[in-house]
């Protein structure tokens, strides 16, 4: 196994008496797609919140690219190359779809007040490149026709796509997708799954995907991690996980019942 890009060691996060994440450990190899599944309330979204430091880790450690990731502000996590989407979309409602994406890229000179006021030419040229990049991403997500629409007016599925678009705009090393398929047209989702695999292979982007569509996850993932009640109960290839007794009991069994 090559160097893991993400390591979670004994992560704990409790809300009052509820241990939402209870001593979880796992590793994610660079350039792979990892599915993270488990029943409602298993602690999957909380795990993403811990990795991105949106919720503080109470004990344990998280490493990304060999460096500690816990205990730094979320924007620093993002700058290290981690992008994420939110289960409940975090769209910027009173801004256009294109603006939502153009916000993302790092190193925008126009983000300095001084440059925006006194060097508008440089800012404009950079802005044109950023918009071209945003339009490319919109094309990929089949949202081109909504470029000038306010994000608040999108359907839930379209907002989910915009979440993915925002992650793609960041040129990340690791992307955490929280239920990207919910509300998205299944055909389009299969296309997006192909795009995700393409980005893994061509750009070496690492993906961790939380998704309730188990067949989709099994089909696209290199490895699958299963959580239940805050704990990691299985971790292996899709085949291994599919036949794991505990998984069938805790998760798939629960769904079938």
């Amino acid at each position, binding site marked *: 196994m090559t160097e893991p890009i993400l390591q979670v060691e004994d992560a704990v996060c409790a809300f009052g008496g509820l241990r939402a994440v209870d001593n979880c450990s796992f590793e994610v190899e660079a350039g792979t797609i990892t599915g993270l599944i488990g029943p409602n309330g298993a602690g999957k979204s909380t795990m993403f919140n811990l990795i*991105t430091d*949106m919720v503080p880790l109470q004990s344990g450690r998280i490493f990304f690219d060999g460096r500690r990731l816990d205990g730094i*502000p*979320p*924007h*620093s996590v*993002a*700058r290290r190359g981690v*992008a*994420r989407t*939110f289960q409940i979309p*975090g*769209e*910027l*409602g*009173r*801004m*256009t779809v*294109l*603006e939502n994406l*153009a*916000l*993302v890229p*790092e190193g*925008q*000179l*126009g*983000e*300095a*007040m001084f440059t*925006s*006021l006194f060097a*508008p030419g440089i*800012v404009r040229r950079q*802005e044109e490149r950023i*918009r071209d990049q945003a339009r490319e991403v919109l094309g990929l997500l089949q949202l081109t026709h909504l470029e*000038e629409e*306010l994000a608040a007016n999108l359907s839930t599925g379209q907002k989910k796509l915009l979440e993915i678009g*925002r992650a793609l*705009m*960041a040129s990340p090393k690791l992307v955490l997708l929280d239920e990207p398929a919910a509300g998205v047209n299944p055909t389009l989702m299969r296309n997006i799954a192909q795009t995700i695999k393409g980005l893994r292979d061509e750009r070496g982007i690492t993906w961790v995907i939380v998704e309730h569509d188990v067949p989709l996850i099994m089909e696209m993932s290199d490895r699958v991690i299963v959580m239940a009640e805050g704990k990691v109960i299985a971790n292996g290839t899709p085949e291994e996980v599919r036949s794991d007794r505990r998984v069938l009991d805790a998760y798939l069994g629960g769904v079938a019942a």
Partner: protein
Amino acid sequence: MVEFEGIILHIGSFLVIAGIYAIINVGLNVHYGHTGLFNIGIAAFFALGAYTASILVMPPPNPDLYQRYEWGGNLAFTLGSERIGFDLWFPLVLIAAAAVCAAVAYLVGSVTIRLRGDYLAITTLGLGETIRLVFTNEGWLADGTRGLNGIPRVMDGLVDPHWYDFVFLPLVLIVLVIVYFVSQRLAASPWGRVILAIRENEDTVEMVGKNAFQFKLQAFAYGAALMGIGGALYAFAKHSITPAAFEPFFATFIIWAMLILGGSGNHRGAILGAFVLWAVISSSQFLPGFLGDPNLRLAVIGLLIVVVLLVRPAGLIPETRTRT
């Protein structure tokens, strides 16, 4: 004829004060309309700008006349008009007022701006009251409750003092136009995009690698600087200031009413709101009988806002996002 002259004079003073409120209101729109910062301590920066400007240009006080009051900068006399034919001190004083307000906002903001919504509101309200009480109680600074009188005026002596508003008005309007264009350019820039995004969803902004705290601090300081410029102009327009002028009603709440009326989220609405509401307030004194009662103004303002918001919920000029 006398009556006609009275109306002209009234219009002059109306436009000067409305223009000043418009400048301050652009600052509030940067804070609330764009960044989503709930600042109800506008009075803090309004007063700080006015006092900074006045203290800089007032001559040092005569020790025989004052027991405690000791300050005064005399900048207006040192850099007076006779040297170059224009009152050079005037733009310098505006810049100084802006700088003091930006610095205070930056310091206060660095400990309070992380607070969300109503908590920030309460700290700003406290700041407004604190600044006013400092100028009330520290007599050596600006003569306490008696305030500063005979503040030197820019381009004084050009016309009969009676008509001074018409000398000052073009200056106020020039400053308003500059403030408008600078703020517009910032709002349309990538900086403005981050600011707006913070208003919409701060978590999203953080998750795309922007330090929301730093941007909020910059917006807070910039908006405060505009309020300070408005305060400085106010001191020159009124020729005298006292701490009572910066009580929350006229120095904070009226400005909020102007923003809501005009349309929060766009500078044009903020400016229009200032002119419309000040027109209503300043002309209500001409209403016949009990309608002219100053105490009734509050009710008139309230009624006006209710009516406008019923007809146009987003204000007179709603926020539009045509460009990206």
